[in-house]
């Protein structure tokens, strides 16, 4: 399986890198033993003393992983912790991090398994940060440092769990429930600037999820036929890029995805989601899948006028002149009644089009 890091990572475990870690640890022990045998002996005694205490957390972790593998299905995991989750996913991650017991490294295998099932990087980072709150330690913290300090500590960790999750997720690029989604490398300064902008935007949106979740005004519903058509558009990918971008929005909106999750998963703006929802409800499928007409003036000159202009330009120049100028052409076109008015500046692009088309036909 390809991890979001772009590296290969086998499903269900650390693979070769796990052996590297073990090798490095063994080498560190060997080197220390060579330099100071007594230190290694003390370290091993401490290890043997600690091992029985680790037995229960390790057992709990194996049971959890066994139950997870037994019951959890990827689609269920994605529904609760993947791209389709909003505030619920963050709450699960942070509360899970606070409630998680035992040493941190015991949780890595389970987190790795969750990632393979589509859990977002940002939620994993939030989980790991939330572990800074150790519930059994809170009474001691209150006793030694006071209730105010302990309260502020807990509040700050909760807040920064979400913030660090958002920032980490954004640093890794598009992520979340989309297996194999490649992270975009920071190849230039401009990409870093856009990454920072996107991070700030994500922070704003994530805080918004807690403060006031967006409630869509227009509810998208699909018939079976419409759903099949949109799924076909998305799957086959043989249509205009704009339709390809809109079809998944409609599918997810119809599946009752929250706007925040939809925007994050598909990397689209709130205004685009609103616009597509509105147009689906008010104007129907075709309008929702297409762009709105572009603002600005309509084209003044059509192909017919271009053809007339071409004919005039190819005819003999007026008497007393050896060639056509733009002004003369404009006057002639008006004089012949092909247009009510014609600016000489409008002639130039029109002639260019005519010439290019002629070259194209010749080729």
């Amino acid at each position, binding site marked *: 399986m390809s*991890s*979001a*890091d*772009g*590296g290969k*990572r086998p499903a269900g*475990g*650390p*693979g070769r*890198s*796990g052996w*590297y*870690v073990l090798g*490095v640890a063994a080498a560190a022990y060997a080197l220390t033993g060579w330099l100071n045998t007594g230190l290694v002996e003390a370290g091993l005694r401490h290890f043997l003393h600690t091992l029985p205490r680790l037995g229960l957390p390790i057992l709990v972790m194996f049971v959890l992983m066994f139950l997870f593998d037994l019951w959890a299905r990827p689609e269920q995991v994605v529904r609760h912790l993947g791209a389709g989750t909003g505030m619920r996913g963050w709450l699960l991650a942070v509360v899970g991090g606070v409630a998680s017991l035992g040493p*941190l*490294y015991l949780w*890595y*295998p389970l*987190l*790795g398994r969750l*990632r393979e099932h589509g859990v977002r*990087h940002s939620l*994993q*980072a939030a989980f*790991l*940060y939330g*572990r*800074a709150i*150790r519930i059994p330690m809170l009474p001691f913290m209150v006793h030694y440092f006071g209730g*105010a*300090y302990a309260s*502020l*500590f807990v509040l*700050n*960790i909760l807040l*920064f769990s979400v*913030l*660090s999750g958002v*920032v*980490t997720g954004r*640093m*890794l690029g598009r992520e979340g429930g989309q297996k194999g989604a490649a*992270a975009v490398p920071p190849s230039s300064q401009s990409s870093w600037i856009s990454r920072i902008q996107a991070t700030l935007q994500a922070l704003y949106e994530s805080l918004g999820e807690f403060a006031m979740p967006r409630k869509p005004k227009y509810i998208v519903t699909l018939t079976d036929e419409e759903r099949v058509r949109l799924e076909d558009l998305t799957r086959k990918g043989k249509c205009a890029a704009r339709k390809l971008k809109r079809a998944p929005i409609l599918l997810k909106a119809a599946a009752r995805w929250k706007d925040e999750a939809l925007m994050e998963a598909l990397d689209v703006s709130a205004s685009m989601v609103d616009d597509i929802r509105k147009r689906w409800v008010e104007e129907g499928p075709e309008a929702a899948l297409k762009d709105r007409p572009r603002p600005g003036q309509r084209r003044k000159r059509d192909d017919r006028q271009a053809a007339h202009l071409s004919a005039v330009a190819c005819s003999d120049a007026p008497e007393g002149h050896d060639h056509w100028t733009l002004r003369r052409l404009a006057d002639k076109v008006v004089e012949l009644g092909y247009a009510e008015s014609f600016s000489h500046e409008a002639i130039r692009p029109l002639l260019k089009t005519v010439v290019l088309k002629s070259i194209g036909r010749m080729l």
Partner: protein
Amino acid sequence: MTALVVTWVTAGLVHLPPEASLLGWRFTLYRTLVAFIASLIIAFLIPALLHVLG
């Protein structure tokens, strides 16, 4: 003291290899860097808030 407590749990160097082997190096490095910076911010924030709250 706050910085010590928070970084101890969230940004430990000892945990880097096992975390990276299971969750990926990029994720681990980015997460640790962000956690470290966040810990520094919290370390400044909590005393400041305590001072403000009296």
